[in-house]
């Protein structure tokens, strides 16, 4: 570079186009350097958790991944869609539904890949949805929205099954998420009437009372309904005191967060109530009694013993705190079934335990895939 007449460089004057090009290049360089530094740091909103590094287990290769494809959203923008199973029920299709959630989490929360498309959920794939699975979906979408810091959009709503759209609308999913483009649902042809979600982070009796009030409005008076109230409070208390108790683990929602819903099947006269949390899972927090329970997971040949742990807690009462005055919560939840036909089902970790009121027995099983939270569900016949 030669010094000019007044000691300045002799670079020729830049044109407007060149100046603009240099400006854009500098801006993009700053953005790229910010992105590369952010990819090694937390991407979760600062208000959520102290250790904001989302870490979810990679779904096992033995589990079939849900169908994924690229498609256009409502504004012709390209999205990467994850398609849920058409039978969206934890009772009838647990492995596919739990696997779907596990893959969805892995997609959303893993380190961002360059040029990766934004992700969406293809609701039109769902033909049947159970209230329990819908509750889990609402919780996962809530957390996803909190994570990305902006509202999710509903796409292809005109192609959704009307009964599925009705259930999600009536449950208040789009109010919970404040979805900007949610369309009102047409009347359902099915017989299931669902209540709006309730959620919170504290044990609030008024919310349980409110839900029971609305439940009796659609189902009629419920005999011994105070036992349902007691069970709901115990489930909320589990979320508050134990579910998010693992230090340093990322949950993505404020500690104590729970979601609650209820429904009534008019045709079969079956009432359900469910509570879900996004915590670490009941088996993870329970102490193991005796040598057998310590070696059982080791010799379980590739599976876990979460189901047996939940069953033991339901039958004998057990608590993370190991204090003698604690541990009665799960047995309390079964009390309503002394007065009604039905079942109490608890899914947590990879385990599932079900208490049936007719046989008065608790059965347990272990799945290959974890649900990713704890679902407590009552189903009683009116």
């Amino acid at each position: 570079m030669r010094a000019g007449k007044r000691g300045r460089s002799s670079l020729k004057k830049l044109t407007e186009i060149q100046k603009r090009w240099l400006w854009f290049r500098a801006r993009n360089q700053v953005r790229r350097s910010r992105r590369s530094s952010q990819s090694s740091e937390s991407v979760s909103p600062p208000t959520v958790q102290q250790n904001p590094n989302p870490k979810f287990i990679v779904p096992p290769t033995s589990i079939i991944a849900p169908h994924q494809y690229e498609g256009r959203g409502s504004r012709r923008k390209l999205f990467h869609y994850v398609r849920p199973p058409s039978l969206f029920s934890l009772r009838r299709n647990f492995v596919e539904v739990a696997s779907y959630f596990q893959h969805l989490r892995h997609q959303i929360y893993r380190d961002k890949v360059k040029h990766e498309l934004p992700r969406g959920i293809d609701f039109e794939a769902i033909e049947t949805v159970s209230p329990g699975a819908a509750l889990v979906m609402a919780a996962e979408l809530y957390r996803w929205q909190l994570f990305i810091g902006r509202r999710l959009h509903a796409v292809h709503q005109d192609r959704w099954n009307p009964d599925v759209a009705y259930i999600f609308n009536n449950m208040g999913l789009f109010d919970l998420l404040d979805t900007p483009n949610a369309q009102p649902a047409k009347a359902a042809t099915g017989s299931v009437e669902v209540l709006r979600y309730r959620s919170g982070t504290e044990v609030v009796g008024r919310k349980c009372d409110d839900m029971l009030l609305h439940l009796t409005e659609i189902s009629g008076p419920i005999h011994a309904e105070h036992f349902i109230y007691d069970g709901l409070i115990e489930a909320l208390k589990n979320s508050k005191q134990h579910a998010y108790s693992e230090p340093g683990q990322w949950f993505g929602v404020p500690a104590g967060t729970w979601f609650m819903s209820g429904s009534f099947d008019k045709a079969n006269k079956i009432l359900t109530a469910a509570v879900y949390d996004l915590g670490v899972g009941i088996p993870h927090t329970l102490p193991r009694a005796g040598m057998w329970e310590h070696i059982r997971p080791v010799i379980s040949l590739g599976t876990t013993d979460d189901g047996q742990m939940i069953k033991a807690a339901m039958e004998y009462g057990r608590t993370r705190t190991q204090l003698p005055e604690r541990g009665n919560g799960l047995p309390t939840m079964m009390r309503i079934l002394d007065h009604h036909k039905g079942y109490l089902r608890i899914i947590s970790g990879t385990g599932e335990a079900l208490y049936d009121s007719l046989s008065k027995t608790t059965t347990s099983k272990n799945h290959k895939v974890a649900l990713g939270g704890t679902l407590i569900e009552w189903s009683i016949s009116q």
Partner: protein
Amino acid sequence: MTSGVAGFSPSIKVAAEFSRTPGGRYYTDGPDSGEKFREEVLLPALQANDIISVDLDGTRGYPSSFLEEAFGGTVRKLKLTESEFFRRVKFKSTGEFEIYIDDIKFHVKRAADGVRA
């Protein structure tokens, strides 16, 4: 607290004087917890009176952890025996709520055994 007629023990109506929707165990769990009932209603009543009556009717229900913290916690705090507790605290309930008195007996016995241990 409802004042009783002379010769009768003062009565606490939980639904009217505390909450119709009893909640969790501790203050930190949320509103209307067992700890709050014990600290703000039950213990002051026991400090002012030798014998009190607790009317359980009218609430939405009584979660196990609420009862344990409220009444079991009272036993632990005042280091009472089981018989002393039930001498000083009388319970009233009707119909299906009578089962909660059995729950309270269970929690009080465990708490008293823990105190003695």
